[in-house]
């Protein structure tokens, strides 16, 4: 009797699965991580089957293995070589449940059966964007005839963020990231940035005290490090005639707060930078060896977080300070200040062929001493624009091991 009921249940399956909307929460979905069998039913049609043992017996989720049009399913796992036979589904103690085909994490299936991405990792993407960027200077210097509300910027960059579960660490790379103001062609960009952070459980090092009885103390602070290569600022706010390049910057970092997968963090950095500037743009093309050098300490506090696990909303905040010293040139021996702060929100609005378009709203403030005369300039820039991202895979929520590899 039970096997007859099981056969009846099987017979009621078929392509009706996709006649229902995906939004039905009561229809289970096959698990992406578990093996899937692909037997053929009595009519020769392929099914996707995933079974598990429960207290009540064997429960098998059964889904079609093709779209209603007969085309093969996209975005599914390969079938197991030795799987469940169709006749086993009609066996005693087997409960057959109609289900939807599996879909990889970060995706859902449309009513047509096609998977589409609903989670995005904006730390892994190539992007280019356009933004309205009204800019206010303390005295409107250097913008010439361009009014502050008529500024717009184009931007691009590539981000790569790699999680190493075995090392309980994350590597962040930013490549060819920069922007250009369309009104006056102010260019800012960095060739390459690397940052390392970890959440080691093993102590980073041990300190022994010999004051009194010898005692040893484990130190496992979440330290990190990073560097920047070749940051260009052409027509900076402090002096539009100057070409300023930071050739390299190296810093150590401390992460007082990190999410368990190191995706979100609060980071404090301290380091040194070396740079060179040319007082007049024409000097760069005539004499690359000219200009004047500067070097000095840098500091930064950086914050980034994903709001929720959906990968749709992000918050970024940075505060940077540098105090380099002129090494040569007319102002050799004098120090100057650079201070900058940025606050930005980015949210995914829609996706075209699983490539997200995000809205980015931000504000940045810069206080910088002029490299020629030492006078200070204040700049406030508000940006509202769109970014089109390529790649941006779904966020990976891979569990971290208890201990990193030694």
């Amino acid at each position: 009797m039970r096997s007859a009921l099981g056969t009846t249940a099987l017979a009621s399956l078929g392509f009706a699965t996709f006649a229902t909307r995906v939004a039905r929460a009561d229809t289970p979905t096959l698990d992406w991580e578990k093996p899937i069998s692909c037997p053929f039913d009595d009519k020769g049609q392929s099914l996707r089957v995933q079974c598990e043992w429960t207290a009540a017996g064997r429960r098998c989720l059964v889904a079609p293995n093709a779209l209603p049009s007969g085309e093969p399913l996209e975005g599914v796992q390969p079938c197991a070589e030795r799987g469940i036979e169709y006749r086993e589904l009609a066996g005693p103690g087997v409960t057959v449940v109609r289900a939807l085909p599996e879909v990889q994490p970060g995706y859902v299936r449309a009513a047509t059966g096609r998977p589409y991405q609903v989670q995005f990792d904006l730390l892994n993407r190539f992007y280019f964007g356009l933004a309205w960027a009204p800019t206010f200077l303390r005295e409107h210097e250097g913008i010439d005839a361009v009014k502050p509300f008529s500024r717009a910027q184009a931007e691009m960059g590539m981000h790569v963020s790699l999680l190493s579960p075995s090392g309980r660490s994350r590597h962040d790379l930013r490549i060819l990231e920069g922007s250009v103001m369309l009104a006056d062609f102010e260019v800012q960009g960095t060739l390459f940035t690397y940052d390392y952070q970890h959440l080691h459980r093993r102590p980073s090092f041990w300190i022994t005290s010999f004051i009194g009885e010898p005692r040893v103390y484990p130190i496992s602070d979440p330290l990190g490090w990073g560097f920047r290569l070749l940051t260009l600022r052409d027509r900076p706010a402090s002096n539009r005639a100057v070409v300023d390049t930071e050739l390299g910057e190296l810093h150590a970092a401390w992460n007082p707060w990190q999410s368990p997968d190191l995706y979100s963090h609060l980071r404090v950095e301290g380091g040194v930078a070396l740079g060179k500037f040319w007082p007049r743009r024409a000097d760069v093309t005539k004499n690359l060896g000219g200009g004047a050098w500067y070097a000095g300490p840098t500091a930064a506090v950086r914050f980034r977080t994903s709001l929720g696990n959906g990968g749709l909303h992000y918050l970024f905040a940075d505060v940077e300070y540098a105090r380099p010293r002129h090494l040569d040139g007319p102002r050799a021996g004098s120090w100057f200040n650079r201070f900058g702060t940025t606050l930005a929100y980015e949210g995914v609005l829609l996706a075209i062929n699983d490539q997200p378009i995000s809205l980015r709203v931000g504000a940045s403030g810069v206080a910088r001493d002029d490299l020629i005369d030492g006078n200070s300039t204040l700049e406030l820039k508000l940006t509202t624009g769109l970014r089109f991202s390529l790649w941006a895979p779904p966020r990976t929520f891979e569990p971290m091991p208890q201990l990193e590899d030694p």
Partner: protein
Amino acid sequence: MLATAYATGARADDYALDETGTHPFKVRFDPASRVWIGSSVALRAGPERAVASTSRLDFGLAYRGAPRTSTGATWQLDHRFVSGFVQPAGVPGQKYVALDVTPYSIDVLRHDDSPHVVLPLSPPVSIPFPFDVGFQAQLARVVVGSSTVFAHDGRGLGFARLGVVRAAIVLDPWRSGLPGRSFELGFALRYDVDAYGFGSGPVTTYVHRFAPLTATSVRFRFQSLDGLTTLSVRAEAAPHWTSERRWALEGVADARVERTVLAIEDQPITVGVETTYRYAPATTFTFAEHEIRAVAGVSFALDLR
């Protein structure tokens, strides 16, 4: 970790276990086998009767060997390479920075449980000899003075010394047999070349000084069993013949104590205090000088054992 400790030459009892009983950490060190770099502050009082303070950069490499002979005697060989200090801040009136660097020196002490002297008679006669014997050698020590020397005409002259060689025979009546512990009586041969006016003017006057085993020294060394604390007290009086065709007397006395207070990843950090008194003899054109120096500093070391 303990297996690694054996492999590097350390012994199991050099380590203790932490409170959890899982992590071994080093509690015994060999202060004579390490590479070190440190920073110190020196206070100096000289003929000008003003106390001057300067900062120093200390460095060096030392290694202690302790081979045993087939007859049961133990040798203690203390090597030092490129050890000394540099004062990065310049000295007023001098062209070169002050420094005191010795490329190589060695202290050797032989300990025998039953020391004796054999007289080659027939039959040979063995006489108890209650001393450990050894020798010391130092090559090419370079000193650039941190202060000027006052000439008879009132000029302040820069000073430099090349300690070409110092070789001494030492006797140790204490015969402790333990590393770093000795009470040594030494008789040394020395040859130094002093350069007056070095780096301070167009003319440099050289004075050669030769002590034919007349440099007599006393040195007391103590090292705790765990190697965390060391003490050294030394005094030397050196009557010597000079190229000015006369005898002169040079004297030095110093005391130094060091203590390891911390270790990072089993690499020691030590603090040290040293006081030195030096008497420099007069020449035909300069006055004799008394100098007192006190130094306190911190060193970071990389253990070689």
